[in-house]
């Protein structure tokens, strides 16, 4: 196997995007995504069974499209990579089954990897950026996760500093959007509605930000209280027969989310003496989040890195990219006996690595 510039195909199916990525070393060749988001819209959230069915339908065409875009054939691959977790179990299983059969069918090694660490690996595929330096703090925000990580080394040492205790930030956006009568997905809708709003109009609570939270939940997040506060505020206005100032509510809510995310991330940078912050996950599409992170990062002397949005949302390229890093650092393949692990801890960067140097040589 080529260990200096391995050609890897990555399969990602942890949520509602079927992602197929192909990389050669650190070079992105294809980032093909099929999304079932529209099918979930009328439910206001991702329905796992709908997502899983969509993965099965999308996989083969997406693989074929990614190969065509890359101009490579399956025979040329050095390895196949797949997300083992965390994510929706039934959705993950489709990717795992597909990846195993693809690897066995091709006689190629298979690398089972961690989705969250994949989000960090996405940054490496951004060839317009300076190389990623370690250690770095990483803030991953999406509809499925809200995690703060300390990355000392991408392939060997990732530590979870904190995560959401209830809703993911993206879920909070979806739920508040519904409260305000805005369609799914909520993130872009709130962003649009907030454009003309006053972010200081209403002071919504910042979850787990009290002095008393600092001991046990300094880097953890909670958004369910915020969602409830918005709901109550809106109800009271409605009960009083007043019109809801949607723009102000959206802007104030968004400010509360962004404030708590950026404050905790920069607090981690300060506490660990790490002047670097990497952002990832679909909620990074939120303009205000990027703005505030860059602005307050600059003030705090922290360099904020934001990969292109196409690499921030769930995708197969980041999975291929992480496997490529594992291969380049000499790691053997995974055994075939792993499954889908919906709660895979972030410390498990590669799942089921073969006990020895690996059967693939």
């Amino acid at each position, binding site marked *: 196997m080529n260990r200096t510039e391995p050609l890897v195909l990555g399969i990602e199916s942890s949520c509602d995007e079927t992602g197929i990525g192909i990389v050669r070393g650190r070079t992105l060749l294809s980032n093909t995504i099929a999304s079932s988001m529209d099918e979930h819209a009328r439910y206001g959230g991702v329905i796992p069974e709908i997502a*899983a069915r969509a993965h099965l339908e999308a996989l083969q065409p997406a693989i074929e499209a990614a190969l065509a875009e890359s101009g490579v054939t399956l025979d040329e691959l050095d390895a196949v990579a797949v997300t083992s977790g965390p994510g929706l*179990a039934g959705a993950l299983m489709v990717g795992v*089954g597909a990846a195993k059969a693809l690897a*066995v069918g091709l006689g190629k090694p298979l690398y089972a990897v961690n989705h969250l660490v994949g989000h960090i690996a996405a940054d490496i595929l951004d060839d317009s950026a300076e190389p990623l330096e370690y250690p770095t703090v990483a803030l991953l925000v999406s*509809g499925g996760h809200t995690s703060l990580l300390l990355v000392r080394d991408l392939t060997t040492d990732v530590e979870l500093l904190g995560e959401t205790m209830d809703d993911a930030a993206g879920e909070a956006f979806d739920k508040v959007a519904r409260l305000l009568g805005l369609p799914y997905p909520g993130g872009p809708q709130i962003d649009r509605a907030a454009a003309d709003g006053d972010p200081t109009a209403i002071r919504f609570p910042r979850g787990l930000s009290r002095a008393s939270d600092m001991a046990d939940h300094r880097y953890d997040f909670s958004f369910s209280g915020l969602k409830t506060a918005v709901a109550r505020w809106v109800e009271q206005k409605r009960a009083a027969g007043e019109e809801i100032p949607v723009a102000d509510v959206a802007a104030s809510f968004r400010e509360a989310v962004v404030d708590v995310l950026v404050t905790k991330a920069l607090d981690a940078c300060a506490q660990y003496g790490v002047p670097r912050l990497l952002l990832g996950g679909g909620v990074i599409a939120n303009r205000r989040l990027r703005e505030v992170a860059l602005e307050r990062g600059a003030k705090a002397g922290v360099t904020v890195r934001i990969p292109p949005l196409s690499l921030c949302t769930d995708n197969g390229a980041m999975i291929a990219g992480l496997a490529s890093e594992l291969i380049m650092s000499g790691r053997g393949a995974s055994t075939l006996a792993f499954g889908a692990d919906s709660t895979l801890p972030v410390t498990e960067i590669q799942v089921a690595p073969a006990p020895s140097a690996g059967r693939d040589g």
Partner: protein
Amino acid sequence: MILAIDTSLGSAVAVVDRDGTVLAEAHTDDRLGHAEVIGDLLARVLQDAGDPVITHVAAGMGPGPFTGLRIGIAAARTFALARGVEVVPVVSHDAIALGLLESDDDAEFAVATDARRRELAWTAYTGIDADGLPVRHAEPALVARAEAEIALTGWIWGEAAQLDAGLLGRVAARAIAAGRIIGPDEPLYLRSPDVAAPKTASPKGGA
């Protein structure tokens, strides 16, 4: 040579030649864990069969519980892609039926399998046709377990707990020999995907 994969009950794979002879077979009866075992099962049957040239991949399309069923179909599709060969879709119940019809090719009966949610999936058969393929009286359907006795009145029927991938491969071999397409392109879920959807979905969404 045909590689047969079915995960409508447990996980079952086999390598079957074009005459229907089973060269290698491997399975687990576990109704969960399909994703865990599918890779090792595939590797094992290929090795046991002497790493043959695969010309077709037979996929058991169900009916069966969704989560497991999909894994075999996904595997069949990507294995076929890897080898540049066709997927031959097979109604999983046809494999069970063939096992019964091989000893009595005029038999009339219904095959039932667990469909979860206190339901059975069932398909009635009326013998074997000139191509050696089971003749379905009607397409697979769901019935509540509690109502099965009434709904299947007139049929000799039983619930199958296992599926032999060798038989699935043999059904595919006969379909290929006859030049017929006998299974659906899409999985036989028999239920709409939102039956489990809560009134207000819990968004566990994107990226």
